[in-house]
């Protein structure tokens, strides 16, 4: 391993610029850090060069810990964005600077710099001054200067950024050749996806200081894990479907779940990616034997001829109601659109404007389930902020998405709440990149209900008094029944979530309480204890059933990488659960709440209310349909 960086963190004032970045780069590899400007990629490069010291974390180069070694002792070559050539020195003197520092005799220095200038294609320009060279020539002098003393590592900060698009291509090839020939481990920073694709052995995509994904260009393009990478790299279509009995449902269309697809919970959202060039258009319906997955019919809305290919935008009838993440839907756009690229050979067969065609895909890819998405109903500012605080902490802990949602009744309240939201946004933005806020005017109950039905959110976090009723029980019951979303309630602010108690009953449908609780534990890196209550210990059949249920729960949670154990209580369920929840180890309690509420069974909102009121612990109520 040539370069190893570990848990790098760097903060400038309040801004967290590098957030826990770890990375291993192989000997001779050309690694590209790809990210938008301000994503923290240059800061990482400067930390590796030794020009900045990290707040925490380490940098190891060729097995030597370099974290606190000064830049001048690291023997690393660096090419700066504007090359930073020494203007008062000739090209020769520039290239020889590092050799002069290392006290090499003059004759040897000159030989070496001639050699390097030849390598970068600048033979004969050694006596010129940088101001007499073109931008591309200056860049090559900077490369030669950085390589003069045979560094083991070459770092390049946007080396093509200041150049004409025309000469970038040639210089890229030039650089790649030199890098391969000298076999020098290279890290290149760029915001240009095309450049990254062309040069990189591997790409690391970085956003807001976090390394999102690492992989070879083709893997990141065809099989990205995250939505960020899928949308940042290349064009494409990402549609949100739902898992339904082992298949993916997109509106009226069903697609098989690929074998290698990441595990999705029952009924959970599935993000399907297909690149424009994998879409197939046809004037006849696809046969089953064609190996193409049909998506129904679409009408050509837009056609852009590009020479070798034509780009099309189609409006899909059968995909109506499917939420697209990309292309980003216009406001008020009723139907789902997809982008298609087809070659223009034999164009008379190609799609025409306004034509309706059969649409299929040759291949598609499933993104990993995203972080937990919290919808927080915040109420008005003077309300108990505990729920909001817990959600923000959980959002940060799980690296999930948090939407703070507020409903107001008039404009005055609107501006007041908006100001408050803005304040929270400013405070938390750094810690939760996917934090959004939304204030709407209207009737509370209705607006919250509508919001939960968008199908985006995994957990609703609410102040239990949000309906305006003083009793929390009916409010919680209504929320669960209407939204069918897991509801997290809390009465007092809570910091860390280290240990989660999951209370489950054998034979509960879908076991979704274990799934939801497990997902939370996995994302929060918390321990989990699965708890069940045996009402009649003499009943052999029930005992076996409950034990089996607990064991299955333990296995599936362990499979998710969660430290997990099981507990079995004896006696009256409500009292047993309360006693177990009262143990100080647990920071959060998950309860399954069967719906509809059967009169003879335990009233779950009662238990939830006792736990939040008397134990001051947050409770996550997971609705479970018992049809």
């Amino acid at each position: 391993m040539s370069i190893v960086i570990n848990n790098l963190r760097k903060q400038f004032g309040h801004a967290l610029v590098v957030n826990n970045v770890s990375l291993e780069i192989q000997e001779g590899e050309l690694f590209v850090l790809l990210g938008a400007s301000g994503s923290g990629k240059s800061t990482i490069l400067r930390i590796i060069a030794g020009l900045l010291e990290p707040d925490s974390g380490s940098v190891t180069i060729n097995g030597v810990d370099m974290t606190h070694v000064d830049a001048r002792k690291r023997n690393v070559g660096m090419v700066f964005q504007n090359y930073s050539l020494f203007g008062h020195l000739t090209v020769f003197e520039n290239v020889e600077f590092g050799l002069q520092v290392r006290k090499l005799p003059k004759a040897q220095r000159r030989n070496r710099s001639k050699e390097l200038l030849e390598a970068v294609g600048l033979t004969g320009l050694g006596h010129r001054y940088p101001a007499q060279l073109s931008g591309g020539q200056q860049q090559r002098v900077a490369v030669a200067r950085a390589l003069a003393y045979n560094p083991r590592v070459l770092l390049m900060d946007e080396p093509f950024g200041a150049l004409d698009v025309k000469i970038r291509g040639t210089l890229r090839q030039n650089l790649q050749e030199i890098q391969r020939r000298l076999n020098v481990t290279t890290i290149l920073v760029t915001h240009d996806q095309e450049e990254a694709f062309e040069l990189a052995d591997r790409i690391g995509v970085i956003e807001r200081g976090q390394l999102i994904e690492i992989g070879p260009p083709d893997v990141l393009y065809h099989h990205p894990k995250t939505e960020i990478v899928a949308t940042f790299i290349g064009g494409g279509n990402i549609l949100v479907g739902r898992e339904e009995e082992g298949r993916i449902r997109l509106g009226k269309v069903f697609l098989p779940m690929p074998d290698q697809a990441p595990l999705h919970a029952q009924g959970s959202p599935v993000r399907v990616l297909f690149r424009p060039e994998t879409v197939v258009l046809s004037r006849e319906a696809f046969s089953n034997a064609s190996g193409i997955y049909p998506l129904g019919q679409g009408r050509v809305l837009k056609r852009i001829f590009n020479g070798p290919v034509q780009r099309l935008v189609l409006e899909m009838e059968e995909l109506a109601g499917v939420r697209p993440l990309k292309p980003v839907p216009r406001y008020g756009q009723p139907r789902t659109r997809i982008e298609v690229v087809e070659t223009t050979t034999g164009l008379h067969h190609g799609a025409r404007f306004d034509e309706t065609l059969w649409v299929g895909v040759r291949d598609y890819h499933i993104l990993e389930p995203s972080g937990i998405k919290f919808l927080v109903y915040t109420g008005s500012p003077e309300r108990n902020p505990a729920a909001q605080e817990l959600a923000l902490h959980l959002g940060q802990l799980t690296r999930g998405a948090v939407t703070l949602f507020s409903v107001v009744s008039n404009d005055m309240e609107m501006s007041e709440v908006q100001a408050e939201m803005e304040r929270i946004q400013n405070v938390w933005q750094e810690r939760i990149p996917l934090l959004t806020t939304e204030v709407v005017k209207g009737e509370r109950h209705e607006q919250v209900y509508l919001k939960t039905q968008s199908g985006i959110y995994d957990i609703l976090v609410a102040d239990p008094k949000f309906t305006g009723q003083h009793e929390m029980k009916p409010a919680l019951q209504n929320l669960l029944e209407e939204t069918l979303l897991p509801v997290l309630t809390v009465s007092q602010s809570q910091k860390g979530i280290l240990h989660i108690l999951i209370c489950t009953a054998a034979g509960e449908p879908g076991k979704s309480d274990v799934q939801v609780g497990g997902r939370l534990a996995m994302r929060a890196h918390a321990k989990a204890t699965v708890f069940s209550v045996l009402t009649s210990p003499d009943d052999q059949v029930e005992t076996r059933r409950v034990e089996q249920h607990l064991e299955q729960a333990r296995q599936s949670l362990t499979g998710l990488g969660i430290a997990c154990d099981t507990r079995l209580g004896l006696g009256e369920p409500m009292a047993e659960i309360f006693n177990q929840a009262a143990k100080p180890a647990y920071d959060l309690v998950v309860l399954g709440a069967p719906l509809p509420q059967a009169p003879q069974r335990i009233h779950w909102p009662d238990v939830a209310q006792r736990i939040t009121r008397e134990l001051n612990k947050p409770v996550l109520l997971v609705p479970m349909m018992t049809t």
Partner: protein
Amino acid sequence: MSERWSDFIQRSLMFFYLGLLILLPIVAITVASLEQGIASLWGNITTPQALYALRLTITTAIIMVVLNVVMGTLTAFVLVRYNFPGKNVMNALIDLPFAIPTVVTGIMLVILYGPNSVLGTMFSGWGIEVIFAKPGIILALLFVSYPFVVRAVQPVLQDLGPDMENAARTLGAGKLRIFFQVTLPALLPAILTGAALSFSRAMGEFGSIVVVAGNIPLKSQVAAVYIYGELESNNPQGALGLSVVLLIISFLVLLVLNFLQRRKWQV
């Protein structure tokens, strides 16, 4: 066609203005100084009093320029590279010497270092005379020319940014080498500009020096004050001689500066 005309008018206007404002007075004074012949001019310049005044002006100017270059560059560094409370106030303070009348500068120095002041008695206790002596002249010159080097170096340093030094650091250079082989050469043209402007200014400085150093021939009388004295004592020819010398020195300094700045590596 009309564009060429406007170009022509623009250029002519500038030449006319430059000629009227700067060239014409110079020609006038040169012609006037030669009215009584070269020998008389030479005689006027080489009187002991005139030679002393000239020597005093040049030595104090050189000492001032050396100090000013060091401190002005340092000031520019501090202003560009560091952030501290009161930076804006300090930045404004630097231009103040340009704004106050130089006579006021002289008065301030006399109040501070005069024979009855605390500092003045302290220095005279150590046997150092400030007022009516060389140190007073140098102090006055330092005060009035402080902005020149700072304001010449500051923008260049700003443009330079830290990356050139960072590049040298990654190449293995230590702090001293970076300063002398990278930063200083890059700043040198700006420093020279500041130095030349300060020097020329010192050649002609009158107001502050006449207050601080008085008009003691062969002791504290600088060239400008000597010229004024000659005029007052109705000897315009004596005044003209030294005036022409000052003019030539200043012009030469600025000419050399211009030449030095036109180097290959300057874009």
